[in-house]
């Protein structure tokens, strides 16, 4: 035990004295709240405001009332576009063509054909197109209703079947994107924060010729690996806690009520999140140590690592594409934790059994990786590549 404490103390000293590595490690924690704050602000603005849409209108003079109606919905003729946005809206090139016979047809009660031209495949245009369509339809219905009322008919006759929509979403569901992002960031923090320390204490030590000296000492390689694992994991845990605290703090500055959402990370959520993520910190560090001990240099380890750190971003993304998730996805590392966090954020009851199973499985894989790394450190191949 004394040996382990000595090994661990030395790892901590080295890690915390490497200011650049520590800064890089905790950068993630500082980036996350800024990003989440920015993206939320933007999303709220999009959801709440109706930014003006500019459409080129032919024959505007024939339908002044329609134009007034559109204007009320922030749909304006292209001639009114401010200079700064002109190029953009000209390129988007949406056209509304009003026939010359508009006024006469309206008077005669004949159907009027307005033509709307736009590139429907353009993603950025989907909202403007939807809004123009709705606005015109609403205008048309308004005239229709007036005509029917004039004829003394109850407008309710027009809607014999009504679909009453009841939104069963939990109020918090609207803040889903924020929590989804937070979940992703937490996973990334668990993976990224300990990374530089893990590489430095393995491939870095090898490059600095201190690994051979250590391997010649009367200490088992398992203890060596465990000490390095505990150190890198500690940094990862600090990264996760910092990300969580700073994000909760940052989100409290966003007025989520504007989009009917609340985002409340209470003590229970925080402690459950930490419980979920703690094994992941150890798992990620063991994975990083395993790979970087086999790299010949710091650089090689870094390029290998780029593949490992894709995992926390890739797995949750893949999960969103799987509709009928097989049960084992609840158990395996990363995906299990990712799903648990999703449930937690949706305020669904947390399945403690799933938490227990995924934690156990993660810990077991971590231990297996430690054993494998320690075993490999004893192999001649590693020793021979030392020089």
């Amino acid at each position, binding site marked *: 035990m*004394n*040996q382990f*404490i*000595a*090994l661990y103390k*030395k790892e901590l*000293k*080295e890690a915390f*004295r*490497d200011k650049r590595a520590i800064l890089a490690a905790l950068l993630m924690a500082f980036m996350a709240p800024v990003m989440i704050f920015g993206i939320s602000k933007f999303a709220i603005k999009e959801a709440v405001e109706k930014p003006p849409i500019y459409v080129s209108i032919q024959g505007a003079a024939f339908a002044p009332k329609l134009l007034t109606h559109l204007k009320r919905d922030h749909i304006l003729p292209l001639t009114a576009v401010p200079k700064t946005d002109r190029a953009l809206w000209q390129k988007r090139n949406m056209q509304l063509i009003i026939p010359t016979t508009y006024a006469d047809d309206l008077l005669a009660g004949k159907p009027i054909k307005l033509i709307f031209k736009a590139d429907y495949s353009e993603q950025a245009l989907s909202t403007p197109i939807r809004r123009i369509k709705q606005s015109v339809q609403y205008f048309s219905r308004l005239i229709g209703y007036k005509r029917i009322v004039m004829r003394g008919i109850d407008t309710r006759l027009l809607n014999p079947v009504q679909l009453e929509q009841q939104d069963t979403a939990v109020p918090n569901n609207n803040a889903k994107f924020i929590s989804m992002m937070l979940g992703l960031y937490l996973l990334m923090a668990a993976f990224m924060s300990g990374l530089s320390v893990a590489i430095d204490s393995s491939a870095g*030590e090898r490059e*600095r*010729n*201190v690994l*051979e*000296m250590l*391997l*010649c*000492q*009367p*200490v*088992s390689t398992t203890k060596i690996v465990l000490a390095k694992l505990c150190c890198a994991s500690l940094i990862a845990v600090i990264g996760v806690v910092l990300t969580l605290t700073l994000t909760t703090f940052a989100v409290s500055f966003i007025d989520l009520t504007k989009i009917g959402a609340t985002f409340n990370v209470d003590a229970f959520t925080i402690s459950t999140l930490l419980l979920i993520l703690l094994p992941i910190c150890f798992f990620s560090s063991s994975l990083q140590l395993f790979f970087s001990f086999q790299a010949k240099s710091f650089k090689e380890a870094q390029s290998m690592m780029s593949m490992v750190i894709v995992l926390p971003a890739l797995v949750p993304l893949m999960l969103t594409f799987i509709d009928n998730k097989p049960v084992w996805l609840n158990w395996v590392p990363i995906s299990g934790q990712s799903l648990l966090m999703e449930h937690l954020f949706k305020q669904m009851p947390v399945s403690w059994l799933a938490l227990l199973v995924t934690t156990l499985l993660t810990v077991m894989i971590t231990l297996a990786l430690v054993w494998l790394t320690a075993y490999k450190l004893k192999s*001649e191949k590693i*020793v*021979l590549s*030392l*020089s």
Partner: protein
Amino acid sequence: MIEVNNLQKNFGKIHALSGLSFTAKDGEITGILGPNGAGKTTCLRMLYGLLKADQGSALIDGINVAEQPLQVRARLGIFPDKFGLYERLTAYEQIDYFASIHGMQGASKKHAIEQIIEELEMNEIAYRRTRGFSQGQRMKVTLAQALVHQPQNFVLDEPTRGLDVMSTRILRRYLAKFKAKGHCILFSSHVMQEVAALCDRVIIVANGKLAAEGTPQQLCDLAGETQLEEAFVKIIGSDEGVAA
């Protein structure tokens, strides 16, 4: 005491060691001489238990390295081929680290560290971080961390490489003192004068085998030369070399 019996090691088709045997006794400095690639480092790495012998055995104080590597390492002080330092630790912390790994603790550990710092005249650098240390200073730290637990056996792999005269002298003086206390010192080197001046016995290794052994004077006599360097070249170079 270090005993090596018929050590054999192949890396693929290359025979690194083909039946090397020698003994390094307590209270003596034994030098290993050999051309590059003779198998010196391979042999020493087997003593540390980093490599496993295909055949033969290495015993340190009677303990088989292959069977009990950790017990063997506890009786060894090691000055490896390539040594680096933990550049973010001070010299003191580094020595302390290795002392703790060897199971030392408390006041006795503190005393041992202070004593070795004193002996190696490194008081001035003890509390400085080792980044930027000169080659001589690095050698001192490595020496101190290898010997802080006062091991019975001390193995050095080309320790004087890159050292200036002053540092080499400090090393020699220290090794002589260590020998006088009855420790066993095994020392690989390329520098003939050094081996001649320092070693009680010399082992010449060529092609993974023992080519000759004896005191520097015996080797010179054996080869019929007055200088150890000439004797060395003759012993390893000639087909009719001395059959040892």
